[in-house]
């Protein structure tokens, strides 16, 4: 077990493409860090640099106290779980688990002991003599996990390990990975594009975009105080609603059209107002808040998802789409006008140009 220190790591490919543009993360011993971001944000590249499968263009990488920039993957004392499991198809499950130990010259008895222990933890004991192709997706996933834990490495690296599983198994394996990691206390770096996976697994989240860190923080922090409009829309489903506001003389306008009466203590002439779908309340169904956001929503569609419904609609002069997440099965006709409100402490403000979060002084009120 060890800490991992990522100092200003960069990756530039031969063609000049910059995949990782100076990322720094301090990972404490035993911490579960999830790297999350859309495709092409550099999260996998970063993980592969930590694993030693990609060379490091610039920056420093420490595992424990050791600078490992140029050390071979085998000598970094890490284990990796791949998206397609990467099991050795010609070997039995036992040999798949034992391979790494054999290569490191462990004694036969010790290998047997470790493999059986890992198999017991992962409940794959009865499949030890099978070949990977005789296993289901979930079982293969367990074997891949087993291959990582038999080695008892300093860190686990996970590269979207659950994305080949069906939805139900994914939820189950997610819980198991979390439980296992807590039991073993092994430092883990986990890559995913699934924000739900990221939220549920992480001690701390690292949101990446375009090869740069957008935000590092606990899942709840990231959810409640997104550092930018990118994080705001990436974390949370459905995504946070963003309303572009601009000041013209002394009037705030929504999307350069409808004038709205807003009191904001800011010098900025433009800003983006964010509000999560579940923080919007339909007045017809609930109480009205005195302060905060009040606006009229023109319904375009209602999506019932069981316990709740997503009400899609437009505000202003029909140019801004927003989603309201409301409990129960709701029925509204397209075209119907609803009044929606949000508490002032549920409103987020971002700089429209940079997309960065800004904290405003005083109360924010839009009428």
């Amino acid at each position: 077990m060890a800490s991992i220190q990522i100092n200003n790591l960069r990756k530039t490919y031969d063609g000049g493409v910059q995949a990782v543009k100076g990322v720094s993360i301090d990972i404490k011993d035993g911490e579960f860090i999830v790297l999350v971001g859309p495709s092409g944000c550099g999260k996998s590249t970063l993980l592969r640099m930590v694993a030693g499968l990609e060379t490091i263009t610039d920056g420093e990488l420490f595992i424990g106290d050791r600078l490992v920039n140029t050390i071979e993957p085998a000598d970094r004392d890490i284990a990796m779980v791949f998206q397609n499991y990467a099991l050795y198809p010609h070997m039995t499950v036992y040999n798949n688990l034992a391979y790494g130990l054999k290569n490191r010259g462990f004694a036969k008895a010790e290998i047997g002991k470790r493999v059986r222990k890992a198999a017991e933890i992962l409940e794959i004991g009865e499949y030890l003599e099978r070949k990977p192709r005789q296993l289901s997706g979930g079982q293969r996933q367990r074997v891949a996990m087993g291959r990582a834990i038999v080695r008892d490495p300093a860190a686990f690296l996970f590269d979207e390990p659950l994305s080949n599983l069906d939805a139900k198994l994914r939820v189950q394996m997610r819980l198991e990975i979390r439980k296992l990691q807590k039991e073993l206390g092994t430092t883990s770096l986990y890559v995913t594009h699934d924000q739900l996976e990221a939220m549920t697994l992480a001690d701390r989240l690292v949101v990446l975009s375009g090869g740069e860190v957008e935000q590092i923080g606990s899942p709840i922090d990231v959810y409640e105080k997104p550092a930018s409009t990118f994080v705001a829309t990436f974390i949370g489903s459905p995504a946070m609603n963003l309303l572009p506001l601009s000041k013209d003389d002394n009037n705030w306008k929504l999307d350069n059209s409808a004038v709205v009466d807003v009191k904001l203590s800011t010098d900025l002439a433009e800003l983006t107002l964010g509000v999560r779908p579940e923080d919007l309340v339909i007045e017809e169904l609930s109480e009205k808040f005195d302060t905060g956001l009040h606006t009229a929503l023109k319904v375009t569609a209602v999506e019932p998802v069981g316990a709740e419904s997503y009400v899609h609609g437009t505000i202003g002069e029909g140019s801004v789409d927003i989603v309201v997440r409301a409990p129960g099965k709701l029925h509204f006709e397209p075209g119907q006008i609803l009044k929606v409100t949000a508490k002032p402490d549920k409103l987020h403000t971002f700089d429209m140009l940079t997309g960065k979060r800004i904290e405003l002084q005083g109360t924010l009120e839009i009428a």
Partner: protein
Amino acid sequence: MLKRVHFQPSVLPYLLVAPQILVTLVFFLWPAGQALYQSVLIEDAWTGNSEFVWFENFQLLFEDTEYLSVFYRTGYFAGAVALTAMFFSLILAGFADRIVKGSTIYRTLLIWPYAIAPVLAGALFVFMFDPTLGILAYGLKLIGIDWNHKLDGDQAMLLVVIAAAWKQIPYNFLFFLAAMQSIPKSVIEAASIDGAGPIKRFWTIIFPLISPTTFFLLVINVVYAFFDTFGIIHALTDGGPANSTTVLVFKVFKDGFVGLDLGGSAAQSVILMSLVIALTVVQFRFVERKVEY
């Protein structure tokens, strides 16, 4: 009720397969039939009169110790060619699989020998290894090896093995490389994280995973050594010295076209034909069905 789609009978499908069938008939079934027919005749080379003798030609062949030794020699030759060609192409493919830059150039250069006609390949080796003129023979002499494949039967055999294997390496290389590149990259990466160095990865992961290709190539290479090396042997040694490089195909040619023993030569062809059939069966039974791992 099972409903089937019925088409109007049409001549089009027959027309479409006709060229293939025609080629097979004219260039394979007809000559093969001729050989079968010839193999049960003894023909007088001078008068053209022939006599039907049942299996006497075969009987004579199997009683002939020379023929049996040619059989063994062919086995030895085929084994040596197949193993040499596969061994070197496997190593070259292993290298090519690992390089990132310039792999196209490397690959193209390696494939070139395949485009050279067997007789020309033979001629190249004749020049290079000629005991009096050849540059390689000269080089060998410098390091104390007295090279003369025109006198030394073992050296002659070595020479035809090298030439025949050299010609087959590009073919094997292509198949090995394709097989290696179809192994998921992550499996190799997993092995390198699991502490296996390049050589260990090759023998414990890559080699077992390409075993279906290896087996396929083994059959192909043996067939090649048996039947397609005539040109090389003809150009290099002409079966000599003292028949030391006369393999089955070459003997068919020598007995039939030089010795004018048409019946005996035909009988040998029939034996070769049954060998091809046997090898093809092996290939279909074991290779086409995926080798399990």
